[in-house]
């Protein structure tokens, strides 16, 4: 084991190896998966031997629909005889972008506004929360339809932005709930007592303590969002076909679910691995930095 290596020897290694040496093996596996999936999504066009994700082999007499996993198609083919592996790799682009947009906008804007109003309370609180309720009550589908109609296009940027925007209110509520309780804790009172500026308390005391819960919410939310994008595709409202995404793939598989379950299983597995890996690596990164053990 690397932990048994003499510290003097370990210190001479390049930093990246020292970094990796501290990782438990599960975390190494998770980090590798994340690197692989992101790299594959970015460089999908350059991967040798990867099939065209939209090539429907059965139309040209090579390959059949709903093939099981095999040598010609590692993960099999879907009900349009398209290569599932290729569709998962290209689909990662849409799924990861949408999930990232939701998590980023939710954590940054929702986290900031929620922490702010949970800390200062009063009129700011009731105003911001009323706006949040309006956004929550406004049917999301109608918003999406309106934006798509007004802009006249339905590409990844539009979908990711709308889903990201709609993610802000729930994160605001979760951040506020935790900020309410944290603002009454001893260390905040202590900071007030020694005359720390409000802004400093917000950024140095409240937000860092809201973040673990918010990130835990982000992880479960990311999985939900990836599937939600598939539900939108089911209504014909996501990124235009034949562009693939994990959610879309899972959703499209329902037609032939009795014949062939693989098209539903593979993207679901990719989703589980990705979300779990994010969780695991995030947890590990936090544990590196904090004295108290992280709860992510």
């Amino acid at each position: 084991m690397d932990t048994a290596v003499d510290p003097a020897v370990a210190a001479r290694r390049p930093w990246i190896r020292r970094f990796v040496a501290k990782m438990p093996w599960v975390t190494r596996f998770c980090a590798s998966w994340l690197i692989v999936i992101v790299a594959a999504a970015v460089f999908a066009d350059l991967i040798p031997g990867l099939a065209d994700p939209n090539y429907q082999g059965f139309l040209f007499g090579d390959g059949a629909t709903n093939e099981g996993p095999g040598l010609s198609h590692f993960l099999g083919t879907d009900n349009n005889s398209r290569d599932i592996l290729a569709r998962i790799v290209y689909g990662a682009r849409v799924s990861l972008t949408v999930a990232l947009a939701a998590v980023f906008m939710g954590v940054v804007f929702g986290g900031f506004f929620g922490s702010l109003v949970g800390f200062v309370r009063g009129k700011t609180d009731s105003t911001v929360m009323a706006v949040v309720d309006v956004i929550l009550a406004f049917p999301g589908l109608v918003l999406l339809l309106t934006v798509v109609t007004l802009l006249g296009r339905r590409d990844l940027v539009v979908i990711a932005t709308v889903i990201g925007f709609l993610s802000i209110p729930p994160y605001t509520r979760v951040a506020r709930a935790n900020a309410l309780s944290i603002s009454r804790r001893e260390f905040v009172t202590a900071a007030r007592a020694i005359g720390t500026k409000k802004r400093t308390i917000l950024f140095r005391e409240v937000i860092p303590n809201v973040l673990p819960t918010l990130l835990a919410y982000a992880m479960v939310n990311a999985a939900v969002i990836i599937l939600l994008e598939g539900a939108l595709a089911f209504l014909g409202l996501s990124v235009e076909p034949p562009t693939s995404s994990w959610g879309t793939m899972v959703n499209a598989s329902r037609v032939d679910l009795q014949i062939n379950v693989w098209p539903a299983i593979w993207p679901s597995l990719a989703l589980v691995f990705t979300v779990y890996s994010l969780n695991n690596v995030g947890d590990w990164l936090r544990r590196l930095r904090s004295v108290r053990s992280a709860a992510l």
Partner: protein
Amino acid sequence: MIVLARRLVQLVAVVLAATFLTFTAMNTLGDPLFNVVGFVAAVDCDAVEAGEIEDISGQGGTSLGDCAVVAEAREEFHLNEPLPIRYGRWVGDLIRGDFGTSFKNRMPVSTVLADRLPKSLLLMGMAEVFAVALSVPWALAAAYRANRAMDRASTIGAFGMLALPNFALGVILFYFFVVKWQIFPSRFEDDNLAVRLKSLVLPALTLGMPLAATYFRLLRTDLITTLQEDFVVMAKAKGLSNRWIMFRHALRPSMFSLVTVFGLNTAALIGGALIVEQIFSIPGLGRALVEASIRDDYPVVLGATVVIATGFVAINFAVDLVYSYLDPRVRRES
């Protein structure tokens, strides 16, 4: 009392803002006239009347008769008036308890809501009961021995539950419990409460599983944070039993995120759950809302928006009250 009055004002403001936005959005989406009279809406009736376009009755073309229908529909739904006036008219009707009439089948929206809402509410209630009953003991067990084998397995299990799409889970449950073993009815049955509850068991499980996973993750995270606090160390030092510490000391202050997300999900589920309603043939609000949104049937969308907005404000009020119960320190210093 003052708090209640302030909340009522907030409720009215939220409902008005949400419905006004919805109203504007629905009217920019498409011509509602199209939904009332169909393709005839596209006919340039002024031109027909002026004789510029030939009147080809009965050949799928335009006719003066069709134009009379169009004019009548415009009159009936006040579609000639400018948008703010129509919105004002809708609000006025709403205050008198009139939700308007659906464009689709000319049914009063209040009838549609009264028919659909109870089913969605019942489904929501069952799903939430299931999710909470599963997630709270599960999170307590996992957080008690954090990062041990059981906790790690739970984390993977929870993400598995989240990643399993609800239609796949729904179809699997449907196959075994309805088709193979014939334990539950294949569609929603509405005879009495027992039958209703029975036909909602599977949909509630389908909806509840991802909810349970979400609640589990949030409660576990917060529990682990709470268990590192000084008062827990103190309780341990006093020699209190672990069970007592988990239930009486740690659980309550750890429930902020859980209660918040519970409130969000509950309010969202008032609006129904499209896919689950479709798999199990439940005539709930979710299907009505999605169909109405796509068809520009805005009276129905607006009616549902009123219900959902009221739900959000009411539930968030309740959630705020629960916060101060969970942690007395949160109470307003007044």
